C-alpha cells in the first residue's frame, strides 16, 4: 500500500513540476531560514554554559538610583569588593576581578607588535572561577606569579608560532611577562572578551591602580564562585548588610551631599550576563531577550508562510485529484486511508524540502557567521538535540500543513466526482485559501514596516540623535594626546581641524563630580577637552562662546592657582537651575578641578571646590548610545599629560583629500608615535560599534522580510496561475458577452487585491504596536511615520499585482473562442 501511495505522490509531484517546485522551494527556503534563526537563538541562549559548574558562578551587579537621576544598572564594581566579599562570606569559594587594560595594551615579541584590545588583567583565582578548557599549563594556578600571562591558542600562535609556548616572554607595554598557560580560543557564546589574561599582581596591572581607588571607582568586574549547596538568594539577602557595612561608609565620605534613592548589590548568574545586560561594564554588548523572541517569532512566521503555500496549492488543485479520490473510495478506501495517503504526500514534500534546506543552511552559515560575528556550528549529525529539533519541526510542519488538504481531499464524495460533478467543499476551500493569503500578506507587510522602522531608527541614531557632525572625522588614539601631536597633525595637508579630548568626551567611560550653583548640588559628568574640540564636530554653542586659546583663563593647563572656565551642556544648565542657556552664561559654579587627573591616582584625594565662570552652553550631544539619555555634563580644557585627561585626537578631514590625509597621518605617526601601533577610526564607524546589534537586527529582519515576500510571491504566483486557468471558461464567456481585455485584467487583479487590502487592515495596527514597543527602548527615537504605513500598504498591493500580472494579462488577451473550447 505504501509503495502505491509513494508512487502516486512522486509521480503527481513530477507531473506538476511547477507547483511542486514552488511548494518545495518555499518550504526549503523557509526551513533553511528557520534553521539559521534557530542556531542563532540557541547560540544566544547558551552563553557561558560551556563553563563547568556555571550554576555556582556569579558576577556582582549594582543598581544605583541617585536623587533626580535615572537608575544606573552596572556590571562593573569596585576594586575592594572581591577581597571584602571573600573576607566576609565563607560561602564564597573563590572571588576574583577582571579589568580591561584601559588604553589598549601594546604587546610585543621580537618584530611582532600589536595593540591588544582584548587584553585583561585578572586576579590569580580567575580561572578557578571560570575553568575554561586548557591547552597547556594550569590556568587555575598560572596567574599566582606577578609576571604570568595566559594566552588563547590562536594568540599563542600569533606571537610564538606554536600552541604551547610555556615560559615564552612577551613585553606588555614594555614590561616583560611570561606565558604560564594556554587556553583554548573562547567560543563566541561567552560574555568574556579576551585573548590575553595577565596577572593582576603585576606592578603595571590596572587592578593594582584600581586598588588605590577602593570603593570610589567602579572599573572592574567582580566574579565569585559559591561553595556547593550555597543558595544565591540567601547570599543576595546577606549582601544588603554587606553594602551598609563595607561600601556606604566610603561612599558617603567621598560624596557627602549625594542623595541615593536606591542601591542594590546582587549576584547575577553567569549565564544571565548576556541576556540581562547592564547599562555599563559588560565586556560585550548583551542581547535583548524581547528582540530574540521577535526573531524567533519571525522564524516561525516564515515557515508558516511557506506552509500556507502548501495548503493553498494542495487545496486549489484538489479538483485534479478528485478522480483519484473517487476511484480509491469506490474501490474501498476509507477516509482514514486517504488521509494517510495525502498526509504521506505532505511528508514527501517536507522531506525533500528538508534535505534541500540543510544544504542551503550549510552553504549560508559561513556568511551568516561573518555577518553576526559569531562562530556558530551546524553539526547536526553529531548534535542529537539539534537533529531531533530539526526533524521534529519538519514533522510538525508536515502534520499541520498536510492535515487540512488531506481532510479536504478525503472528503470528496465519489458518486459526484466520478461523474465529473462538482467537487465537495470547494466553497469552503476558497474561503480558507483567501484567509491564508490574507495571513501571508499580513505577515509580510508587518515585516516590511518593521524593517523600514528599524533602519530609520538606526540612521537617526547614527546621524541626527547624537547632535554632532561626525562625517569625515578621524579619531586617533594616543597615550596621551599632546599639543605636539595635535599641532603636527594640524599641519598635514587635508586636515581642516584637530583637537584632543579625554576618553569621557567621546563616551569611553565616564567620571562624575559634585557641582554646586546657587546652593544647588548636582552630580554632573565631566570631560576635559581641547580648544577647537566643539568645532571639529560642528557643535555650536546655544549661548556664550567656546574655549579660546588666546584667553588664559580658559586653559587649565596653564593656570597655577585657579580653576579654568567651564562649558555646560543643556541638561547640566537645566539641572543647575538655570532657566535658559543664556541665563547660565557668566554665572559662577563651584566644582573640583583635579589638576593631575591620571589613571595612577584614581580615587586619590579630591581637592577643595573652586568657583569658575560658565562661558557657554552647548546642546546635549553624545558619542554613546541613544538608548540612554544624554548625561548632564560640563567641559573644560585641562592638562594633556595623561590618557584620562587627553587620549583621543579628533581630526576633521577635507573630504576631497581624505585618503591622502589618512596615509600622511599614518606616516607621521610612524615617526612620532614612539613605536606604538597606530589606532585610528573614522568617528562614524567608531559609533557603529554601539549600534551593531541594531544593524544586525535590521539586516536580519530585512532578510527575513525578503524571504517571506519571496515565498509568499511564489505561492501567489502559483495560485494565480491555477486560478486564471480555472477561470478560462468563465473569461471566454465574459469576453463573448462583450468584456474587453482591460475588463478581464481588472477583474483578475481585483480578485488578488482584496486579500492584500484585508491583510493591510490586520498588519498595520499590529506593526504600529510592535514598532512603538521597540522604539520605547531608546531614550531618543524616531516616531512611527504615517508615510511608512501608506508605503507598506501600497507596496503590498504592488507586490501582489506584480506577481499575478503575467497570468492575468495572458488570460485577458486570449481569444474567447479558445477559452470556450477549454474543458
Amino acid at each position, binding site marked *: *500500500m505504501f509503495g*502505491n501511495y509513494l*508512487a*502516486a505522490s512522486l*509521480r*503527481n509531484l513530477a*507531473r506538476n513540476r511547477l507547483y511542486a517546485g514552488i511548494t518545495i522551494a518555499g518550504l526549503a527556503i523557509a526551513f533553511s531560514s528557520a534553521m539559521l534563526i534557530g542556531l542563532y537563538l540557541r547560540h544566544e541562549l547558551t552563553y557561558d554554559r560551556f563553563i563547568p559548574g556555571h550554576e555556582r558562578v556569579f558576577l556582582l551587579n549594582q543598581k544605583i538610583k541617585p536623587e533626580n537621576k535615572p537608575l544606573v544598572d552596572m556590571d562593573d564594581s569596585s576594586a575592594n569588593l572581591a577581597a571584602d566579599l571573600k573576607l566576609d562570606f565563607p560561602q564564597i569559594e573563590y572571588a576574583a576581578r577582571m579589568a580591561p587594560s584601559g588604553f589598549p595594551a601594546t604587546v610585543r615579541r621580537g618584530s611582532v607588535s600589536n595593540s591588544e584590545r582584548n587584553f585583561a588583567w585578572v586576579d590569580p583565582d580567575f580561572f578557578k572561577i571560570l575553568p575554561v578548557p586548557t591547552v597547556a599549563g594550569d590556568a587555575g594556578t598560572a596567574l599566582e606569579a606577578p609576571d604570568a600571562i595566559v594566552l588563547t591558542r590562536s594568540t599563542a600562535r600569533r606571537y610564538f608560532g606554536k600552541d604551547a609556548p610555556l615560559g615564552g616572554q612577551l613585553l606588555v607595554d614594555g614590561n616583560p611577562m611570561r606565558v604560564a598557560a594556554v587556553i583554548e580560543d573562547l567560543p563566541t557564546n561567552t560574555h568574556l572578551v579576551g585573548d590575553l589574561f595577565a596577572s593582576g599582581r603585576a606592578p603595571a596591572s590596572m587592578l593594582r591602580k584600581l586598588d588605590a581607588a577602593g570603593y570610589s571607582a567602579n572599573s572592574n568586574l567582580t566574579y565569585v564562585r559559591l561553595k556547593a549547596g550555597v543558595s544565591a538568594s540567601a547570599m543576595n539577602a546577606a549582601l544588603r548588610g554587606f553594602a551598609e557595612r563595607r561600601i556606604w561608609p566610603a561612599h558617603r565620605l567621598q560624596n557627602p551631599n549625594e542623595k541615593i534613592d536606591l542601591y542594590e548589590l546582587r549576584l547575577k548568574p553567569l549565564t544571565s550576563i548576556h541576556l540581562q545586560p547592564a547599562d555599563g561594564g559588560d565586556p560585550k554588548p548583551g542581547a535583548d531577550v524581547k528582540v530574540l523572541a521577535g526573531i524567533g517569532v519571525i522564524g516561525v512566521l516564515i515557515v508558516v508562510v511557506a506552509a500556507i503555500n502548501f495548503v493553498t496549492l494542495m487545496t486549489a488543485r484538489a479538483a485534479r485529484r478528485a*478522480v*483519484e479520490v*473517487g*476511484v*480509491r*473510495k*469506490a*474501490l*474501498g*478506501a*476509507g*477516509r482514514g*486511508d486517504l488521509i494517510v495517503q495525502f498526509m504521506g504526500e505532505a511528508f514527501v514534500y517536507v522531506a525533500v524540502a528538508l534535505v534541500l534546506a540543510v544544504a542551503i543552511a550549510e552553504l549560508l552559515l559561513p556568511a551568516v557567521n561573518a555577518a553576526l560575528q559569531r562562530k556558530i556550528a551546524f553539526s547536526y549529525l553529531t548534535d542529537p538535540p539539534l537533529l531531533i529539533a530539526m526533524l521534529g519541526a519538519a514533522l510538525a510542519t508536515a502534520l499541520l500543513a498536510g492535515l487540512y488538504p488531506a481532510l479536504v481531499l478525503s472528503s470528496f*464524495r*465519489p*458518486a459526484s466526482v*466520478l*461523474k*465529473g460533478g462538482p467537487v465537495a467543499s470547494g466553497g469552503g476551500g476558497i474561503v480558507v485559501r483567501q484567509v491564508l493569503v490574507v495571513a501571508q500578506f499580513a505577515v509580510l507587510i508587518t515585516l516590511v514596516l518593521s524593517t523600514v522602522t528599524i533602519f530609520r531608527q538606526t540612521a537617526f541614531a547614527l546621524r541626527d540623535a547624537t547632535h554632532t557632525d561626525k562625517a569625515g572625522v578621524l579619531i586617533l588614539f594616543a597615550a596621551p594626546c599632546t599639543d605636539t601631536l595635535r599641532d603636527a597633525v594640524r599641519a598635514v595637508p587635508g586636515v581642516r581641524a584637530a583637537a584632543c579630548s579625554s576618553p569621557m568626551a567621546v563616551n569611553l567611560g565616564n567620571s562624575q563630580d559634585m557641582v554646586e550653583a546657587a546652593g544647588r548640588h548636582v552630580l554632573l559628568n565631566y570631560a576635559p577637552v581641547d580648544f577647537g574640540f566643539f568645532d571639529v564636530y560642528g557643535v555650536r554653542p546655544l549661548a556664550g562662546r567656546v574655549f579660546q586659546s588666546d584667553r588664559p583663563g580658559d586653559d587649565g593647563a596653564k593656570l597655577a592657582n585657579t580653576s579654568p572656565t567651564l562649558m555646560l551642556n543643556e541638561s547640566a544648565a537645566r539641572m543647575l537651575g538655570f532657566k535658559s542657556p543664556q541665563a547660565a552664561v557668566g554665572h559662577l559654579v563651584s566644582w573640583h578641578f583635579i589638576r593631575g587627573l591620571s589613571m595612577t591616582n584614581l580615587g586619590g584625594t579630591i581637592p577643595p571646590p573652586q568657583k569658575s565662570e560658565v562661558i557657554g552652553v552647548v546642546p546635549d550631544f553624545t558619542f554613546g548610545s541613544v538608548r540612554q539619555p544624554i548625561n548632564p555634563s560640563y567641559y573644560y580644557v585641562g592638562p594633556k599629560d595623561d590618557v584620562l585627561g587627553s587620549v583621543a585626537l579628533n581630526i576633521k578631514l577635507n573630504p576631497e583629500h581624505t585618503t591622502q590625509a589618512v596615509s600622511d597621518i599614518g606616516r607621521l605617526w610612524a615617526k612620532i608615535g614612539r613605536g606604538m601601533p597606530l589606532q585610528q577610526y573614522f568617528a562614524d564607524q567608531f559609533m557603529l560599534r554601539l549600534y551593531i546589534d541594531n544593524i544586525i537586527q535590521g539586516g536580519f529582519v530585512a532578510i527575513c522580510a525578503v524571504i517571506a515576500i519571496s515565498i509568499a510571491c511564489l505561492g501567489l504566483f502559483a495560485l494565480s496561475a491555477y486560478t486564471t486557468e480555472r477561470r478560462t471558461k468563465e473569461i471566454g464567456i465574459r469576453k463573448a458577452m462583450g468584456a474587453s481585455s482591460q475588463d478581464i485584467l481588472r477583474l483578475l487583479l481585483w480578485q488578488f487585491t482584496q486579500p492584500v487590502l484585508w491583510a493591510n487592515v490586520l498588519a498595520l495596527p499590529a506593526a504600529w504596536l510592535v514598532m512603538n514597543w521597540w522604539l520605547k527602548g531608546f531614550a531618543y527615537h524616531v516616531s512611527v511615520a504615517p508615510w511608512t504605513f501608506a508605503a507598506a500598504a501600497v507596496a503590498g498591493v504592488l507586490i501582489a499585482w506584480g506577481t499575478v500580472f503575467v497570468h492575468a494579462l495572458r488570460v485577458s488577451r486570449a481569444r474567447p473562442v479558445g477559452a470556450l473550447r477549454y474543458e
Partner: protein
Amino acid sequence: MLRLDKVTKVYRTAEVETLALNEISLEIGAGEFVAIMGPSGCGKSTLLNTLGLLDTPTSGAYSFFGEDVARRSERELTVLRRDRIGFVFQSFNLIDDLTVAENVEVALLYRKVPSAERRRRVTEALERVGIAHRARHRPQQLSGGQQQRVAVARALVSEPSLILADEPTGNLDTANGEAVMALLTDAAAAGVTVVMVTHSLSHAAVAQRTIKLLDGRVVSETLLAA
C-alpha cells in the same frame, strides 16, 4: 440478492429539490446480468450509485446480499464496497499517476491482500482482459478501449460479488465496445452479478434483463433470456 424496497432519493440544494429515484422496488439475483436504460436524467446513475453503496437512499430499504444497508455508516459501507463490489465507469476513471498494473492493484490494496498474491492476481486479471503487455504503461498512453479493459480488469481483480458498470461502452468504438461486453458477459457467466447502465440497445440485449427508468421510476422490465 440485491433488493430495493420503495427506495427514494431526493437531492436538495438551497433552491431546488430533485426527485432522482421515486419509490423504486426491484430485486436482482446472484449471477444475474441486468441492464438499466432510460433517457438522460431519469435516475440511472443514481440507481447504480445506490446499488454500489456510493450513495444512500433518502427513504426505503436496501438489502445488499441479505444485509440491510440503507442506514449504514460510511465506514460500514466502505467495508462492504471493498469486499463485494467492482466498478466500471464510462470515463474509465483510471488514476493518471499510476501505471496500468498499479491501477488494477489499487482494488486489492484496501483489502490487505499480501503483495505476492496481489502481483499474481493483477497479472491474471490483465491477461484475462488481454492487456498484460501494457502493464507498465500509464493510462494516457493507452487507447480508450484499452483503458476500459484496464478498468474491467480492476473491477474483476478483487473477485467481487457485484460489478456495476456505468455506460462502460459509451466512450468506445464498436469493436472495443463488443470486447468489453464480452468480458462482462464472461464475468456474469462465472457467477458475478453485473448491473450495467447503457444507452445501447444492442449491448442491453446481451443482458438477461433490461430495466427501463423514467423520471426516477421503473417503467418496464424485460426478461431477455433465461
